[in-house]
C-alpha cells in the first residue's frame, strides 16, 4: 500500500468503515474521527471518493425499461390467473 499517513493500521481500520460513513450510519464521534483523518490522509480520501463514485455508477447501471412485449405477456398471464381463480 502506498499510504503516506504515518499510522497505516489506523487507515485500514477506518477503511473498513467507509461505507458506513458514506451511508450516514455512524454516530457523531465516529463521523468526526473519519473526517479528521481524511482531511490529512490523501490515500483514504482517494478511497472514499472512488467508493462514492462506484456507488453513483451502480445507481446508473441499475434501471432498465421493461420490454413492451414482456409487459403485455405479463398482463395476459395476470388476466388468466384472475379468471381461473
Amino acid at each position, binding site marked *: 500500500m502506498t499510504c503516506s499517513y504515518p499510522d497505516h493500521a489506523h487507515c485500514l481500520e477506518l477503511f*473498513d468503515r*467507509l461505507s458506513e460513513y458514506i451511508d450516514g450510519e455512524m454516530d457523531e464521534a465516529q463521523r468526526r474521527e473519519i473526517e479528521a483523518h481524511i482531511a490529512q490522509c490523501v490515500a483514504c480520501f482517494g478511497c472514499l471518493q472512488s467508493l462514492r463514485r462506484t456507488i453513483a455508477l451502480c445507481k446508473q447501471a441499475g434501471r432498465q425499461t421493461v420490454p413492451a412485449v414482456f409487459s403485455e405477456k405479463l398482463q395476459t398471464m395476470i388476466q388468466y390467473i384472475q379468471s381461473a381463480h
Partner: protein
Amino acid sequence: MTAEPDPNRKNVLDEDTELVRAINAGDLQRFQELVQRYEQKLYTFGRRMCRDESGAEDLVQDTFLNVFRYLKDFRYETKFKNWLYRVAANTALKQRRRSKFAPEPELPLEDVLDREEAASPAEVPEWARIPLEQLLNEELLGILRQAIWSLPEKYRIVVILRDIEEFSTEDTAQILNLSPANVKVRLHRARLFLRDKLKGYFRHDV
C-alpha cells in the same frame, strides 16, 4: 392449523396497504394495479440478479405468480414492498438452484478484497474526480453490470437492494432475514469488489 392472532402485533401501514387489503378482500381485478406499480422495479431487480433477459422475465413472472398465490398470507407486519422483495429474492434463489446453466460463480472474493491492496490509491483517481456525466457511457455501464453479476449471490443481492433499489439497511436486513450488521459488511465488500473492477477498467481503457 391457524396461528392465534398476537394481540400485541402492530400493523404496518404504507402506500400499498389499501390496495393489498382490497385485493385480499376479493377485488382481484386490482391485482393488475399492483403489477403495474412494481413491474418496472422488479424487472430492474431481475436484470441485475439474472444474467440474461429471459431469466429476468421468468423471475418477474414467477414472483407475481407467487405474490398472487400467497398474498392472503401477508400479515401487514412489514412494509408490503419488503415482503414483495422477499418473495422476489426467494424466487431468484430457487430459480438458480433449478438451473443447470447458471451455477453460482465461484470467485476468490477474499483475494480480491485483500485489505492492503484494497486501500491502495495514493491519490483520488481521475475516474472519481471528473463529473459523472463525462464518465458515463454504455460500455462502462456494461462493464459494471457484468461486474455486479459476477459477484457471489449473497453479495450481489445486497448491493442490488441497497445501491440500486435504494432500500435502507434495516429494510434490506428484513428482506434477506439478515442482521443489519451483516448487511453492512456484505455491502462494503461488494462495493470494494466493484470498485476494484472499475479501477481495472480505467487502468486499461481510459
